[in-house]
């Protein structure tokens, strides 16, 4: 059996490939558009600012704990200085 390709077969194949490529490109560009549009949504903006605030507050608590511990050690040393005669330098050994 001798089959013949329909007329303009090759052109049809290329057209389908081009259409698929363009569809793929559309998916990517749509995703990018969706992402960009997300930033314009007030809820996303509020979420980002809230997240930033939470991170800042969390970091401050951790750092403040360290600072307060260091300040506590300084205060303890100040108190000891007032009751320890050896803490005034004359007792260095």
């Amino acid at each position, binding site marked *: 059996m001798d089959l013949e390709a329909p007329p303009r077969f090759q052109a049809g194949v290329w057209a389908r490939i081009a259409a698929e490529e363009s569809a793929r490109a559309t998916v990517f560009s749509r995703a990018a558009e969706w992402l960009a549009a997300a930033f314009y949504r007030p809820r996303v903006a509020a979420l980002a600012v809230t997240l930033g605030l939470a991170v800042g507050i969390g970091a*401050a608590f951790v750092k403040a704990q360290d600072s307060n511990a260091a300040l506590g050690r300084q205060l303890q040393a100040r108190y000891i200085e007032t009751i320890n005669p050896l803490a005034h330098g004359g007792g260095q050994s």
Partner: protein
Amino acid sequence: MKRPLLLLLAALAAAVLGYGIVYELATRPAKAMLAHPDCGMVWLRQEYHLSPEQFAKVEQMHTAYRPTCEAMCMRIAAAREKVDALIAANPAVTPETEAALREWALVQNDCRVAMLRHVYAVSAVMSPADGKRYVAMASGRLVETGMAHTALLDQ
């Protein structure tokens, strides 16, 4: 593309602002305490949960102990000066240097005993748990003699 960047900056600003405010509020009491002229006693009151009556007693004991502490301090300084002078004057260890070093050690010991007596007396005013904690803290500092060696080496 401007909007995402602005949003990022806003989030960053919120983080910095939140950090600054919370850090300042959380460390303010300790900083204020350190700036107080009698910060050691203020710290003691807060750290060992002293009631106004307990604090008044401790303050009274502290004031009464001060002349003893100052006298001890002067004795240590005098003994130290004697040791320094003998070391500077002699090329080797002399019996006088040995005696001066012994005297210096004895004075230091007297100071430790006096401080420990005061510490026990103060702890008796506190609640048993706080008193125990206070004795542990203060006795831990008994062996400290002025600046640490590392601090001297750093200078």
